[in-house]
C-alpha cells in the first residue's frame, strides 16, 4: 500500500431539506483514500455513509467542501465533465446491482465500453475477458435473472472494472448475499481486483467482511469519528 492519495475529501458538508426539516447528513468530513488500499466506510444506518460515497464519486453535489480525484476538482466540473470522469475513473457496484434484465450478461458488462464509444464487437470481445476474470465466461449469453445472487454480483463487478477505473465504489456489497458468498466475493475482489494502481472503497456494516479491509473509517451522525487500521493485513 502506497501513501499517495487517489482521492482527497475536504470539509464536506451535505444537508437535505430547509428550515425545520433540514437534516445534515454529512458534517465537516475530511479524509483520503490511497492507491492500493481497500477502505471501508462503516457506521450505523443513517450515519451518512451513502451520502458521503455519492459526494466523493461525483454523483451528489455537497453544500460545502471539495473532492479531488487524482488531479480533478470534482465539484468545479460541469455535469458532462463529471459524467466523463465517472466513466473513465470510477467503477460502481450498486447494492442491488442494477443490471439490465433484457440484455445478456455480456452486453451488461459491455455498457461502460459502449459509453466510451468503443465499437460494438470490440466492446463485447473485451467484456468477455472481464466476465472470464470474474469466472462467468460460460454465462455470457444468459440474462442476469438466470443467475444466482452471487453471480449477478460478479457480473456487476465485471461491469464496474470493464472501464478500467482507478477507483471502485461498492455500496453494501454483501447485503443481499448469504454470509459465505459475501465473504468469498470480497475476498475475490481483494485478491484479484485490487492492485497498486487503484483504490477500492466499500460501504458496509457487515462485520464478517471486516478482515479484508486495509483501513476502516467509522462514521456516526454524519461525522467521521475514527479509523481502525487492519495491521493483520499488512505485510
Amino acid at each position, binding site marked *: 500500500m502506497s501513501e499517495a492519495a487517489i482521492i482527497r475529501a475536504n470539509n464536506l458538508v451535505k444537508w437535505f431539506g430547509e428550515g425545520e426539516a433540514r437534516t445534515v447528513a454529512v458534517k465537516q468530513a475530511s479524509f483520503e483514500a490511497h492507491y492500493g488500499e481497500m477502505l471501508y466506510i462503516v457506521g450505523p444506518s443513517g450515519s451518512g455513509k451513502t451520502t458521503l460515497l455519492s459526494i466523493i464519486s461525483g454523483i451528489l453535489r455537497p453544500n460545502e467542501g471539495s473532492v479531488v480525484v487524482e488531479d480533478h476538482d470534482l465539484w468545479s466540473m460541469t455535469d458532462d465533465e463529471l*459524467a*466523463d470522469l*465517472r466513466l473513465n475513473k470510477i467503477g460502481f457496484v*450498486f447494492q442491488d446491482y*442494477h443490471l439490465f434484465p433484457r440484455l445478456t450478461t455480456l452486453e451488461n458488462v459491455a455498457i*461502460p465500453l*459502449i459509453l466510451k464509444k468503443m465499437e460494438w464487437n470490440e466492446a463485447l470481445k473485451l467484456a468477455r475477458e472481464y466476465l472470464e476474470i470474474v469466472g462467468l465466461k460460460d454465462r455470457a449469453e444468459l440474462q442476469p435473472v438466470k443467475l444466482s445472487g452471487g453471480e449477478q454480483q460478479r457480473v456487476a463487478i465485471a461491469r464496474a472494472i470493464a472501464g478500467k477505473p482507478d477507483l471502485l465504489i461498492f455500496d453494501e456489497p454483501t447485503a443481499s448475499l448469504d454470509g459465505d458468498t459475501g465473504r468469498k466475493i470480497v475476498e475475490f475482489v481483494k485478491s484479484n481486483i485490487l492492485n497498486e494502481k487503484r483504490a477500492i472503497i466499500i460501504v458496509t456494516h457487515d462485520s464478517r467482511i471486516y478482515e479484508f479491509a486495509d483501513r476502516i473509517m467509522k462514521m456516526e451522525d454524519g461525522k467521521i469519528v475514527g479509523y481502525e487500521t487492519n495491521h493483520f493485513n499488512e505485510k
Partner: protein
Amino acid sequence: MKPVSGIYRIALKLLMNDKSKFTALLVGITFAVFLMVMMMSMFSGILARSCAPVYNIGAKVWVMDPAVNNTNSSIPMPDYILSASRSIPGVKYAVPLYFGSALLKLKDGTYQAATVVGLDDSTLFGRPEMIEGRIEDIFAENAFVVVKDAEFPKLENPKIGTEFEINDNRGTVVGIARAASSGLFGVPTLYTTYNRAITYIPSARFTTSYVLIEPKSDADIPGIQKAIAKLGYEALTRDQFVKKVSNFYTFKTGVGMNIMMMTAISFVVGLSISGQTFYTFILENIGKFGAMKAIGAKGNELIAMILAQAFVTSLIGYGLGVGAASTFIIIAKLRMPDYAAQLTFQTLGLALVMVMIIAGFSSYIGVRKVLQIQPFDIFRG
C-alpha cells in the same frame, strides 16, 4: 469506428427484448396508422371522384350558378349567359355544357340511371378520349358514347351498335371512351351532343348547366371573373371549382366532419396507447437508466436512446400500418371496382406526421422522466 452507434443498439435491445411492451407499442401504432390511413384514403377517394368531371372535361374556366357546390347538382342558367360570356374581352371562346341525369331502359327491360354529358355541337369541347369508334360519330342519329369505367357493366357491357331507350327516345352506342377518372355516384356516364341532350332530356325553363370558357391568356381570367360576377353568376378556374367541391364535401356534408373526427380519434387512441406503454416502459427501467447515468452516460446520450426507441418503434408501426391499409385497399378494389379509397402521398405524409407526433410525445414524457432521475437515488435504493 462508428461512434455512438452502440448506445442505439443497447437502446433498441432494451425495448425490443421486452416483448410484451414492444408488441403493445407496435399494435397501438400500427392500428392507429391503419385507421388514419384508411379514413384519409377514403376521404381523398371521395373527393377525387366528386371532382372527376371537372378534370375530365378539362375546361379552364367554368361559369355556373353561385349556388352550385358539386358538379352533379348543376343549376341550369339562362341562354343569355352564353352569349354574354362570348362578348367578354379576353374570352377566346365560350361553349355550353349540359350535365344531367337520365333514366335508361336497357335491352332486357331493366332501368338504369346514368349521367349524361352534352358537348357543344360545333366544337365538341371537353370530348373524351376514344377507345373504340370515332368521336365524329356522335353526330349520327341517336348517337351516344359510353364511358368505360367501373360502372360500365351496369349498362350490360354495351358494344358499338347496342341500343337502349333514354327517356322514351332511342339511343345507340357509337363509341366507347376512356374514363380519365370515375365519378362518385356509381352510375355510368354517356356523352352526346348538347342539342341532343337538351332535346332528349326534359328540363325546366333553362338548359345550360355550365358555360365553359377558354381565355385568351391566364391574365384575362380575373377580368372574366369580374364580368361574370356582374351578371350574378360565378366563374371559377378548374382549381377553384375543385376546391369548392372539396370544401362542400369536407365542411357541408357529414362526410368530411365524420372522417376528420374518426382520424382524430384514431390519432388520440394511438397517442395514448403508445404514450402510456412507453411511459410504463421507462418507469420500469428508471433504476437502470439511473445506473447508466451514474456509470457515466450523459444526459444527451440518454435522450438519444429514448428517441431511438420511440422513433424506430413508431416507424416500424407506420410501415406495418401503411402496409396493412394498402393491402386492404388493393384487395377491396379487386373485389369492388367501385371502391373509392385511394392512397395518396399526402395521406402517407400526413399519417407520417401524426406518427412522428406520437413518437415525439412518447419520447418527451420519457425524456422528462429520465432527466429527472438523480443517480443518488440509485444508491439509496
